[in-house]
């Protein structure tokens, strides 16, 4: 066996590829420890949740856009949630809003995005056989699955799922009397989230360990693709913030089920005082947003990393400002932990404290702007190749700009007091966090589909999907800015009942119609995805002519990824269109000594060092082979 010397860096499974693996259906597709299959499991589950989450939003958009519409035709699905006179039940409206948020933020854009691409790409791009612990990885998926099942069941119970908003603020979420959804639905929400937190932590611990310990030879941190940097930092954010959500949820469970008063105080129901005294609902907000704000970056950073990779590849240019990209992601990571109270400007907290959080919040604009400019300068005068993945990446940059600008407004406490909890906020975070991350995820699927399934997705359907979705997203969320500035509050079942908000019905109708079209367009993608999986054109080994390591694996990499040696890495991943080079890309596995025509002066210096490494490696190989034979 010629690979024995890789044992030093590949602690797990380094001998899997030698002999035929007799996987049966269960070990291959269900209880698998192969990071690639686990990534696909996360992807398919995430897509399932995206459909559910999208459908829920359509139902409440119907109510908002067409308030007088008869929804009798939904009775076969929603049953009692349609009132006898054919309207949507107001309690269920709140449940829909809550579950849409929970599902999209956690199940689609955290598990579906990070879970899919961190699992799939980290070992492939750093040159590892698998994750540090395949078992923990499997456990991470199955805890997510259990969490999904519980959350899904909660949609169907009689009192309805949790309804207090995805932030589940007490006392609304803490008292069963508050609303029907605060009963069993809320309990199931908390149980599901506990499993979700455990799943995220297991996954995150694995990602960090893998990136730090299992990189192949030569893969220093300054040669990591930006995708890996992004996944790595995302995992660190998750590791630090999800335990805090656990604390918040734990105290909420005690308040709900054991009668403690962490968050409850001086509450009267029907004239009767509750026994709880001494609690503080703002305490929950602090704990929740300490997770909640970093969560925004857990959702966004992987998408930004994916975009960096796709834009550099398809611009046929090195990413502009590689180090600046890393530093700005580090900056975002650190800052994400010190800005949480900008979600609480109207909670009655000390205005001086508000100013500090405002200041810190606005600092985030700097690394974000650095990233945007780096994307634009990477695109600038590149030989752009408009693959569907590239289009979605450019779409992400567009949303990141248009949604990010409104973040500067909202970060100012004075303006936020006016705009807080209006549709302006909804528009802001749906563009910058929701749509941008969703586009990053879709871009990633288009780009890495050939590696996942060995076939290409249909590009023409991809273009149709892109333009419908891109225009649709702006049609949905841009008008919401105006609705929000006009003072329309979010989470309201109906506006027509109030004098100040009974206008703009046409605009709401437009938004709802656009939302339906945008949602329908996603079925083009779903068809493309599943059709191409079986019938798509068979992909070439490196269809995008990309530099990173995953494209050096076979078309259908087995468990262990590379049939022979793990390739060593000699250069950074962005050597596109290097002056003097024969081709417009030089994979990371090509030694500098093999490309004297394109080396820069300082790289020529490195060649000497490299030759020693290669010589060392050969003696090792010979030594190993003679030892084995």
């Amino acid at each position, binding site marked *: 066996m010629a690979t024995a*010397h890789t044992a*030093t*860096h590949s*602690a*797990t499974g380094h001998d899997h590829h030698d002999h035929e693996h007799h996987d049966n259906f269960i070990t291959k597709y269900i209880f698998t420890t192969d990071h690639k299959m686990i990534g696909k499991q996360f992807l398919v589950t995430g897509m399932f949740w995206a459909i559910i989450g999208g459908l829920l939003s359509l139902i409440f958009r119907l109510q908002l856009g067409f308030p007088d519409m008869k929804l009798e035709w939904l009775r076969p699905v929603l049953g009692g949630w349609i009132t006898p006179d054919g309207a949507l039940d107001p309690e269920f409206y709140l449940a829909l809003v809550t579950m849409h948020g929970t599902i999209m933020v956690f199940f689609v854009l955290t598990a579906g995005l990070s879970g899919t691409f961190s699992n799939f790409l980290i070992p492939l791009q750093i040159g590892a056989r698998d994750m*540090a*612990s395949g078992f*923990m990885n499997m456990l991470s998926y199955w805890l997510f699955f259990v969490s999904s099942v519980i959350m899904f069941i909660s949609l169907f119970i009689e009192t309805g799922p949790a309804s207090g908003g995805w932030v589940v603020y007490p006392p609304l979420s803490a008292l069963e009397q508050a609303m029907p959804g605060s009963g069993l639905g809320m309990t199931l929400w908390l149980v599901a989230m506990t499993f979700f937190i455990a799943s995220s*932590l297991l996954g*995150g*611990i*694995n990602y*960090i*360990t*893998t990136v*730090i*310990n*299992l*990189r192949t*030879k*030569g*893969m*220093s941190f300054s040669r990591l693709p930006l995708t890996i940097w992004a996944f790595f930092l995302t995992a660190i954010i998750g*590791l*630090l*913030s*999800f*335990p*805090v959500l*656990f*604390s*918040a949820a*734990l*105290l909420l469970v*005690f308040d709900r089920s*054991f*009668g*403690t*008063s*962490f968050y409850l105080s001086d509450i009267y129901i029907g004239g009767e005082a509750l026994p709880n*005294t*001494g*609690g*503080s609902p703002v*305490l929950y907000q*602090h*704990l929740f947003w*300490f997770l909640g704000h970093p969560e925004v970056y857990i959702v966004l950073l992987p998408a930004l990393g994916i975009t960096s990779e796709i834009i550099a590849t398809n611009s046929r240019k090195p990413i502009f400002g590689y180090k600046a990209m890393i530093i700005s992601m580090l900056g975002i990571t650190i800052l994400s932990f010190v800005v949480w109270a900008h979600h609480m400007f109207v909670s009655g907290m000390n205005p001086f404290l508000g100013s500090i959080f405002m200041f810190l919040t606005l600092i985030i604009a700097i690394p974000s702007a650095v990233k945007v400019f780096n994307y634009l300068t990477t695109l600038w005068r590149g030989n752009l190749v408009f693959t569907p993945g590239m289009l979605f990446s450019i779409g992400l940059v567009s949303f990141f700009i248009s949604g990010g600008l409104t973040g500067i407004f909202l970060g100012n406490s004075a303006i936020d007091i006016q705009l807080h909890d209006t549709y302006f906020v909804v528009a802001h975070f749906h563009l910058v966090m929701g749509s941008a991350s969703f586009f990053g995820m879709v871009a990633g699927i288009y780009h890495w589909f050939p590696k996942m399934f060995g076939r290409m997705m249909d590009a023409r359907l991809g273009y149709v999907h892109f333009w419908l979705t891109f225009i649709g997203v702006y049609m949905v969320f841009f008008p919401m800015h105006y609705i929000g500035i006009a003072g329309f509050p979010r989470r309201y079942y109906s506006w027509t009942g109030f004098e100040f908000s009974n206008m703009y019905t046409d605009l709401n109708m437009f938004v709802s119609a656009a939302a339906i079209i945008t949602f329908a367009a996603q079925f083009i993608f779903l068809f493309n995805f599943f059709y191409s999986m079986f019938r798509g054109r068979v992909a070439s080994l490196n269809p995008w002519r990309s530099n990173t390591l995953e494209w050096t694996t076979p078309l259908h990499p087995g468990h262990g990824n590379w049939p022979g040696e793990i390739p060593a890495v000699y250069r950074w991943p962005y050597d596109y269109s290097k002056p003097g080079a024969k081709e417009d890309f030089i994979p990371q596995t090509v030694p500098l000594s093999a490309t004297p025509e394109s080396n820069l002066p300082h790289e020529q210096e490195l060649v000497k060092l490299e030759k020693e*490494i290669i010589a*060392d490696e050969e*003696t*090792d190989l010979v*030594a190993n082979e003679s030892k084995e034979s």
Partner: protein
Amino acid sequence: MEEKFAYVEGAEQPISMHPKKFALWLFIVSVVMIFASLTSAYIVRQAEGNWLEFELPSIFWYTSIIIVLSSVTLHVAYQAAKKDDFQKLKGGMFLTVLLGLVFLVCQWYSWVALVDRDVYFVGNPAGSFLYVFTGLHAIHLISGVIFLIIVLISSFRYKVHSKNMNAMEMCVTYWHFLGGLWLYLFMFLLLNH
């Protein structure tokens, strides 16, 4: 072969730790975050007033001594394992497990002591927080005791020795961490109750 790679990897792969040990450290980080957030919540809530003042159970002093002792015995066992002194290893591990269990029982009596002075889980958050701290710590400590017992069993099967220290080292790290965590919680309570 190792030495040759040391040259290559010295420059290229600065950190290479045993993945499982590294994962344990990351797990410890997440536990630290749980208790950091809870103790911060305690301070924030305390600053708002309406805070029940009461004496901490004096049994906490004894449990702190017990947990320190258990770390000492575990360290003795660890040193013995490194030197392949199996008798001392087994004795040290056994004592550590015993002390761990005694600690848990004493923590239970701290709750009894709290109830005796009319501090209940349900009531003013000052008391509730105390129960949450001790309870959550106890749950982690139970997982630590289980880990200790696993290592104890493998030490009786002579599977812990100077050439096979991974499980032992991880166990030692985790247990010292749990001891340190308790000392932190106790000092925090002494300073902030």
